[in-house]
């Protein structure tokens, strides 16, 4: 029983990270139908920023510094991707462009950092463990869960309560109508693209002490983020949250129960959701909610 509870905690930590990563992917897709295949590469940039600045875990300040550094790098990359995808109206071409960027970025990363698996130590003050359910549990993962909760509340407030948020929701629901109303959607789209990419890169830093950094990790993360978006419903913030928590739990349960079939379980979960709710659990387009 305790094993499951610890597994559930791990799942929550994973879910928090997945929410941070999948949010940008979902909103960019919902707002402009761009499938950003470089999203995993953006994540990996964040992970390597953590390796470069705070790989040894000696200095907590360096780790804290890595977060804005990664956010900046991710946002720049997101801006470039947004500019590229706005250069062509065809969705397949946009996907191919982001795919090309992802290959280039991943290859550059492996040129600079090599092909070894890098691990990132949690910053010293939170590297220890506390006793949870009678077992010792890493403090860092609890902090990640806390980060997920804060992020979810913050994004909810931004998207559901602010003017910018209502513009984002309206753009997801009906882009043509928003443009027809005279709102210049271009800047909002680029902004959301950059912010989403920045958040994914921050996810890369925070996931560093859990998942490390290695070539190929970008694809795994992209897959999980895609599944989260598909399960939750395209362009939906609440959907991304629900999907992330669900997939986090499926992953954690899978690794506890059937480690060999963990990835199969993720697909099975996606297939099941699509069978019952083809548009995802909380789709954005039928009902205009975050």
């Amino acid at each position, binding site marked *: 029983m305790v094993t499951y509870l610890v597994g559930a905690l791990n799942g929550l930590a994973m879910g928090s990270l997945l929410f941070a990563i999948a949010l940008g992917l979902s909103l960019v*897709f919902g707002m402009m*139908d*761009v*499938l950003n*295949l470089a999203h995993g590469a953006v994540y990996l940039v964040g992970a390597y920023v953590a390796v470069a600045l705070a790989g040894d875990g000696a200095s907590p300040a360096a780790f804290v510094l890595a977060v804005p550094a990664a956010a900046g790098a991710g946002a720049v990359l997101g801006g470039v991707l947004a500019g*590229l995808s706005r*250069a*062509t109206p*065809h*969705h*397949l*071409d*946009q*996907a*191919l*462009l982001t*795919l*090309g*960027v*992802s*290959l*280039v*970025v*991943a*290859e*550059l990363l492996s*040129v600079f950092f090599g092909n070894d698996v890098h691990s990132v130590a949690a910053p010293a003050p939170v590297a220890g463990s506390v006793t949870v359910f009678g077992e010792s549990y890493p403090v860092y993962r609890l902090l990640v869960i806390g980060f997920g909760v804060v992020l979810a509340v913050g994004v909810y407030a931004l998207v559901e309560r602010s003017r910018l948020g209502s513009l984002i929701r309206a753009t997801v629901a009906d882009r043509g109508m928003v443009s027809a109303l005279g709102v210049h959607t271009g800047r909002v789209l680029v902004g959301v693209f950059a912010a989403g990419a920045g958040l994914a890169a921050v996810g890369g830093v925070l996931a560093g002490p859990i998942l490390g950094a290695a070539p190929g990790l970008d*694809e*795994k993360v*992209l*897959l999980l983020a*895609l*599944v989260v*978006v*598909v399960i939750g419903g*395209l362009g939906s913030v609440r959907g991304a949250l629900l999907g992330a928590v669900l997939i986090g739990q499926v992953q954690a349960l899978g690794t506890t129960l059937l*480690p*060999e*079939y*963990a*990835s*199969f379980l*993720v*697909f099975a979960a*996606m*297939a099941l959701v*699509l*069978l019952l709710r*083809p548009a995802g659990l909380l789709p954005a387009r039928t009902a205009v909610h975050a």
Partner: protein
Amino acid sequence: MSAAERTQAVDGIRPRRTAGKAVVAVAVLLLLAAAPLVLGAYPVSTMTRILAFAVLVLSVDLLTGVTGLPTLGQAAYFGAGAYTAALVGIHLTSDASVQLLAGLVAGLVTAALTGWVAVRARGVVFLMLTLAIGESVHQVADTWSVVGASNGLAGMPPITLFGGPPLLAAGFVYWWVLAAAVVVFAAVALVVRSPYGRTLRGIRDNEARMRALGYRPALARYGVFCLAGAVAGTGGALWAAHARFVSPGDLGFEVAALALLSVVIGGAGSLWGPCLGAALVLLVRDNLSAAVGGHGPLVLGLVFVAVVFLLPRGVAGLAAGIRRRKEGLS
């Protein structure tokens, strides 16, 4: 000119052009068949891999070019075919035709089991779902011990044909792969020209119109997805027959992306264009990669970006444009 005369005029042009095409096709076939007689073992081995990969690319073209469903998941069915053929080779028989059939069935069954998830979507959502399916199958291959997990599946004996001796020379394997690839190409060409191919193009152009004419597009889409799975599985079996080793990398994201890139470079919807694209893409990956210090993916990434801006309709589109311009002049 009356309508009847114009119809005749169109028909009068057609046989000549068809005859010209047939001559080119036979010439290309003869050249391909003669390759092992003049080339060394390494280029022949490269050409074998290109042929097997081209079969995968044909399956992507069937979905992306003909039906308008861009896919990043075909490598999964290619891999299913390759793993199945390798397992048959290791445990059952070295007969290449049995392996081919097993690969075909494996691709078909895997596509039939997973395809219904994807075919309800269209456009970029379809792309996204196929990518998720493909990556999931990849992860399964990477962790499942029955197929060697991340080590892959080695120890496949050389193939035999019709009870003959093992085909050890690269040339013989090449001829087998060439023969099979030509048959698949002809089969896909037949599908494209058939009434079903017309139905698929109709779905690509205007799905709502198809429904208003009484069609059920979802059924036709599922059918072509299974068909494309079978084609990709056949390609996988051919790949395994040559490599005699299958690893999770063979059904990874990169393979799926390269297959889609080949279709886009070649010109979606044309059949010969994407085959040419397949050759180009594999040559770039394997040869240019060495020339730029092993950074093939870097070059490929730039190729992706360049293709979108420079070759929006692929090589086949370029050729069609030149042909039109010539006809306009004459």
